[in-house]
């Protein structure tokens, strides 16, 4: 009966306190769309310094976050990649309407893997037979994917390119497909495009519907004023230059 003590030891070990986080220290939990990864990693420490609050950044897909916040996900503030998710959650009563704020407009770029060779300068270049795969975010649920589809349609190359398209789950995943050279080219967000493995050129903003990104404070948040302060910080004197540097157009400068 050697196995019984073994299982009991397992169970005992598992139930040991210690490793588990007991009480949560007072902090601000931010659910942020994946395209904000680089910008917010730089912004958050500055906000912490300015306010003394501790910020926990959680990056992921806007759609997943929307499901989670609807089900009581422990966010204090939600930065979506697309304002439609914010509006739907406000209607559901999960977000505070009066805190809804536009914080940026996204831009897309045409990215070429450096390993591939010459930088593509316009969307028609994707038709080149040497470009075997073109990565875009999934247009069904990713805002940047929708914008990519609109731009490709506007350029009249969508139908011809369809067999070459591969879909990333979100914009960071799409970038990785090009970064690794798995796709020779792709359409990604300007905010994530500054990586050594790719060359990029801007796609005109008139080629797609505006990528208006909104944020709002979560209704269940125990510290709504801190969440609002973070939104204002992102839109404020210290936040705007950083957001711009990472490829987001701040409100009022669209």
């Amino acid at each position, binding site marked *: *009966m*050697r*196995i019984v003590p073994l*299982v009991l030891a*397992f*169970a005992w*070990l*598992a*139930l*040991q306190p210690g*490793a*588990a*986080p007991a009480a*949560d220290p007072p902090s601000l*939990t931010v659910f942020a769309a*994946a395209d904000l*990864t*680089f910008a917010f*990693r730089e912004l958050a420490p500055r906000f912490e310094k300015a306010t003394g609050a501790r910020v*926990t*950044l*959680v*990056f*992921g897909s806007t759609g*997943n976050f929307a*499901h*989670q916040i*609807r*089900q*009581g*996900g*422990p966010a204090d503030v939600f930065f979506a990649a697309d304002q439609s998710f914010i509006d739907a959650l406000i209607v559901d009563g999960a977000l505070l309407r009066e805190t809804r704020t536009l914080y940026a407009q996204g831009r897309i770029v045409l990215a070429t893997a450096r390993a591939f060779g010459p930088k593509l300068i316009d969307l028609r270049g994707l038709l080149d037979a040497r470009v075997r795969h073109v990565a875009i975010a999934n247009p069904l649920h990713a805002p940047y994917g929708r914008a990519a589809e609109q731009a490709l349609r506007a350029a009249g190359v969508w139908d011809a390119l369809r067999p070459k398209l591969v879909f990333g789950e979100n914009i*960071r995943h799409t970038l*990785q497909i090009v970064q690794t050279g798995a796709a020779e080219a792709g359409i990604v967000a300007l905010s994530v495009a500054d*990586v050594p493995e790719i060359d990029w050129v801007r796609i005109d903003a008139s080629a797609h519907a505006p990528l208006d990104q909104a944020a709002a404070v979560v209704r269940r948040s125990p510290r709504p004023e801190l969440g609002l302060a973070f939104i204002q910080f992102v839109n404020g004197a210290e936040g705007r230059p950083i957001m711009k540097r990472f490829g987001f157009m701040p409100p009022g400068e669209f």
Partner: protein
Amino acid sequence: MDLFPLWLSLRVSLSATALTLLAGVPIAWLLARRRFPGRNLLEAVVVLPLVLPPTVLGYYLLVLIGRRGPLGQALASVGLELAFTWGAAVLAAVVGSIALVIKSVQAGFETVDVQLEQAARTLGRSEWSVFWSVTLPLAWRSVLAGTVLAFCRALGEFGITLMVAGNIPGRTQTLPLAIYDRVQANLMDEANALALVAVGIVVVLLFGLSRLARLRY
């Protein structure tokens, strides 16, 4: 480097493995030894978590245990919240791995000669005693194999955990989620180091268990 994800993952996988054994072994025994209505249905339900994509499964679980879900509301009425806690990560790991325990242990029980069990019964042993002194010892290696599979699956669980526990650093960010996060943030050195840690754990564990497997029950 912050090692919190490592400790959390170990704790979650150990808890989940203990729970899968507690729930999985009796189910495996039922499937191997009893004929009852709905048995085929149960067999199908058991492997369902392996068929559904983890994130989809995670979404359904979240709808069930979330604040607006039926189970979530029942738990809330007694002051408990499971979604987005480390307990949700345990639940995710159990759901993801229990099929592996049930199927291997069931196969183990089925290879045990029923005549040996009957011989024990003719000697006056109770069903309980037959199970502990005949069936389980003879199926011991299958139980061990199922345990290893379940532990490894629990340690690597990603999709379900992401949905029901969230990916909150310092609270519910397990090792696989932490690795994924580092990759997303282009911090490849940290990602590689964490991945190496995960691989190291499993190698040490498998080595230890292969020793253990040579032992008799």
